[in-house]
């Protein structure tokens, strides 16, 4: 065991003395996470966690209930930490606010919007539904996207309600028991109910609730930070795998074999080195993002176990990849490709649930997907029990890959002779 540690600590020292490796292992994930934070407006407001200061201009020219309902949503307490609405009188003024980069988007509710959806006292609807205009600020694409999602959710609620009301009225009318007076009263009542429902609708889920019921704020960086950390973790482990071949080439591996040290001890030491590198990298990234970006990664024991499990699985990949190739350059090149593929598949860049089902299935071979699931669960207030599946999957992945790597290595011999 002592020899294993001697070799592993030497490898750890060497990799942390390599400026190029440090840039890709630590600086790159930090910078990309920072960039994501800037793009999402994470750092433009106060220092609290979460997305904030998404400014929106709402021009409500509608005199009806739905216009008021939309205003009410953007003024609601639920969105108070997230959205800062302003209410200019004219469309021109809204355009001016966008051009001055003072708002991320503008929403124009035209005159007669409610009337085009809610039946009047006679149960009639005035023509085709009038459309709401959404104007995005090109300088704030992410904020504009989120505001658009809130609006879409509201409109979906309106549409569901409108169709529901139509169906109800037509079904009653078909019974022949609906008098014109009753139809008018019913239409008005349904319209009012529709407006109330739309106003009460939760257009976007911004709060997660822990098992204990406490509210936890959602923070986009809590998605990007582990995503990037896990993606660049793959770089660290392939670098580790590459070092085995590099040492063979530079003669230090044969020299180790000429000391009173067994092949198993040397291989074990190299693998332990990869694992320690991965654990150190993840710990630095998690600690660093906690301090720099005020991120709350969740329950410390869970985070610690997830770091170990993710590092274990990734190290398995690093060792396995090293056995597939003969030269350090091949491992480096393939490692970079794998890092990107696993990053994409594992959801480091975007939510894979938006992609076809087969992508989601394929993502399960990556430590990224399981790790990300675990970290976001913990950040959302998850407990140790709630990350048991990702933990087990990562450990199992590591065991399978290490077994495959050691069988292949035994066949080939440590020095490939």
């Amino acid at each position, binding site marked *: 065991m002592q020899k294993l540690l001697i070799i592993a600590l030497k490898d750890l*020292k*060497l990799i942390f*003395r390599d400026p190029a490796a440090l840039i890709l292992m630590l600086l790159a994930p930090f910078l990309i996470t920072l960039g994501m934070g800037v793009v999402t407006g994470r750092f433009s407001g106060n220092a609290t966690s979460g997305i904030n200061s998404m400014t929106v201009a709402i021009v409500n020219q509608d005199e009806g209930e739905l216009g008021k309902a939309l205003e009410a949503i953007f003024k609601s307490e639920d969105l108070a930490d997230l959205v800062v609405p302003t209410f200019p009188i004219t469309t021109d003024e809204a355009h001016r606010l966008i051009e001055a980069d003072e708002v991320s988007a503008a929403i124009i509710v035209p005159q007669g919007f409610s009337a085009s959806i809610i039946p009047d006292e006679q149960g009639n609807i005035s023509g085709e539904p009038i459309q709401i205009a959404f104007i995005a600020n090109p300088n704030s694409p992410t904020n504009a996207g989120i505001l658009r999602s809130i609006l879409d959710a509201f409109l979906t609620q309106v549409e569901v309600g409108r169709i529901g009301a139509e169906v109800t009225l037509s079904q009653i009318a078909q019974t022949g028991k609906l008098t014109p007076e009753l139809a008018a009263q019913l239409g008005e009542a349904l319209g009012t109910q529709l407006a109330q429902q739309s106003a009460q609708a939760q257009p976007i889920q911004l709060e997660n609730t822990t098992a204990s019921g406490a509210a936890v704020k959602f923070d986009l960086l809590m998605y990007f930070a582990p995503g990037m950390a896990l993606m660049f973790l793959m770089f660290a482990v392939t670098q580790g795998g590459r070092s085995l071949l590099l040492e063979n080439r530079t*003669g*230090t591996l*044969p020299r180790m074999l*000429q*000391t009173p040290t067994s092949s198993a001890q040397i291989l074990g030491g190299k693998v332990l080195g990869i694992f320690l590198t991965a654990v150190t990298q993840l710990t630095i990234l998690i600690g660093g993002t906690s301090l720099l970006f005020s991120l709350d990664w969740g329950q410390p024991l869970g985070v610690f176990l997830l770091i170990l499990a993710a590092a274990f699985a990734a190290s398995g990949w690093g060792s396995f990849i090293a056995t597939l190739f003969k030269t350090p350059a091949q491992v480096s090149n393939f490692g970079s490709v794998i890092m990107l593929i696993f990053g994409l598949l594992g959801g480091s860049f975007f939510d894979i649930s938006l992609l076809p089902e087969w992508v989601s299935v394929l993502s399960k071979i990556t430590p990224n997907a399981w790790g990300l699931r675990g970290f976001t669960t913990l950040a959302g207030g998850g407990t140790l029990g709630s990350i048991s599946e990702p933990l087990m999957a990562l450990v199992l992945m590591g065991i399978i890959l290490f077994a495959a790597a050691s069988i292949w290595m035994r066949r080939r011999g440590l020095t490939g*002779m």
Partner: protein
Amino acid sequence: MAPILEVRDLVKKYGDFTAVNRISFSVDEGEIFSLLGPNGAGKTTTISVISTLFTPTNGDASVCGHSVLKDPMEVKRCIGVVPQELALYEDLSALENLQFWGKMYGLSGKALSDRITEVLDQIGLKDKAKQRIKTYSGGMKRRVNIGIGLLHKPKLLFMDEPTVGIDPQSRRAILDSVKELNRQGMTILYTTHYMEEAQELSDRVGIIDHGELIALGTQEELTRQVDETDTLVLHIAENEDPQPLVDRLQTLDGVLSAIAIDHEISIVAHSAQELIAPAIRASEAMGIKIYSMDIREPNLEAVFLHLTGRALRD
């Protein structure tokens, strides 16, 4: 003296290629034994098998009384290896390299730090021990490479071409340190393709070519094989093609062999003196100018030339 190393019918094959073919020799405790041969002759493979890095295809070797096949770990405890290529961590300092390799040899604590101090003194790098290896000159790196092999005071030290690619001053220092180590009682197996190094250092020499040991003995025993011959060396212009002259010289009476290396033609003959005039006439006839010539006493180079018909540097 009892042999500290006995090699018996050692064979190492890589597929169809035989790198080492039925080599047998022994090295006595306290001697410097050189394996002399050109590049690719099988010297490094022989050392690699004896130092347990490669498993022999056939045969065995006994080091300090332990079989390399049956007891490789005990063999490794007894030997030190100075590989031909620099096997160092460039991003670690000399001190950190020595610490790492010392621990790999089982040293620790005060024993390790004391030994590192001694070795740094021995290789003359005490003042620069904390500098990273990548900042060192080639000669300094070579010295660290040797120092690592000495850390655990091995009984038998393998030195595989330790002077390749370094300046004459560092080369001199290394040769002197080899003699000093031997004076202190260390047995050394030294491989080289430099005839002068083998001549200067060795008690006994094994000449190896194409994986086979073609001669073995003390320098006197070996040169006796070419005792009745001299070597006449002709130096010609660098832009001349020596081969036509070599072909012509080989037809002269009394010439045993002739070979050209760069702009130097070596002619082994029963009497070099008698060959001077015919050689000059032949060169004049072919329009090749001889700048200088000298006659050399029988040496290991001549032995190799005599045995193989090729030069050591071929």
